[in-house]
């Protein structure tokens, strides 16, 4: 399954979507909004997406995990405003063998960060910043 939503993410939903009785393991990656970034104190984030393209790009990641590893993968991504401690992204990969699940899950989150058109605005105690790759640009 894939999901882009303004609602709180439920990691268990990602697990349930991919686990079968034939699977011996799952690896779950959860990205969470932390209270600091680049030396600044962060209070929250706002995620923006080029939604139709983001959905297609996430679907491609799920398809690639199937093609490359023959494993099931589910990806949930939060949009809109989100506070410290809440999950921004959830990726679950289930399979029979653990090493493949680790590889596929790490590949999926690395690829998501590179290839899925989603951006975040960071609300920090000293200002608001657009995060664009390594750049933090003061928001107007």
């Amino acid at each position, binding site marked *: 399954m894939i999901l882009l939503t303004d609602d709180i993410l439920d990691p268990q939903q990602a697990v349930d979507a991919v686990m079968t009785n034939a699977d011996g393991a799952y690896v779950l990656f959860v990205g969470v909004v932390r209270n600091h970034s680049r030396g600044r104190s962060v209070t929250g984030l706002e995620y*923006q997406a080029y939604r139709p*393209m983001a959905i297609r790009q996430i679907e491609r990641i799920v398809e690639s995990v199937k093609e490359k590893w023959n494993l099931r993968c589910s990806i949930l991504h939060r949009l809109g405003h989100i506070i410290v401690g809440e999950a921004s992204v959830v990726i679950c990969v289930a399979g029979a063998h653990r090493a493949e699940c680790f590889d596929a899950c790490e590949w999926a989150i690395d690829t*998501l*960060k590179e290839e899925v*058109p989603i951006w975040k605005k960071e609300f920090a105690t000293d200002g608001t910043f657009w995060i664009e790759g390594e750049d933090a640009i003061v*928001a*107007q």
Partner: protein
Amino acid sequence: MNIQTLFFGHYRDFAPESLTLEVPPGTSVAEVAGRFAEKDSRFADLIKRTRVAVNGEFASPDCMLSEGDEVAFLPPMSGG
């Protein structure tokens, strides 16, 4: 012909999310970017800083546009 442009990230602070533009047939993505740069120096680095998508698929700045195309300028992404 008419095309549509989409901006994201910090460009959204001074560009409309979506804009319909009239351009001559055979206009490339880079030429569209050039038009914005001419009007406002904050777009000067548009092609250098962004990847481009045409109709939701990554495309080259050389890509020739057709009537009704949707051109998105995608700054370095920060999802996840």
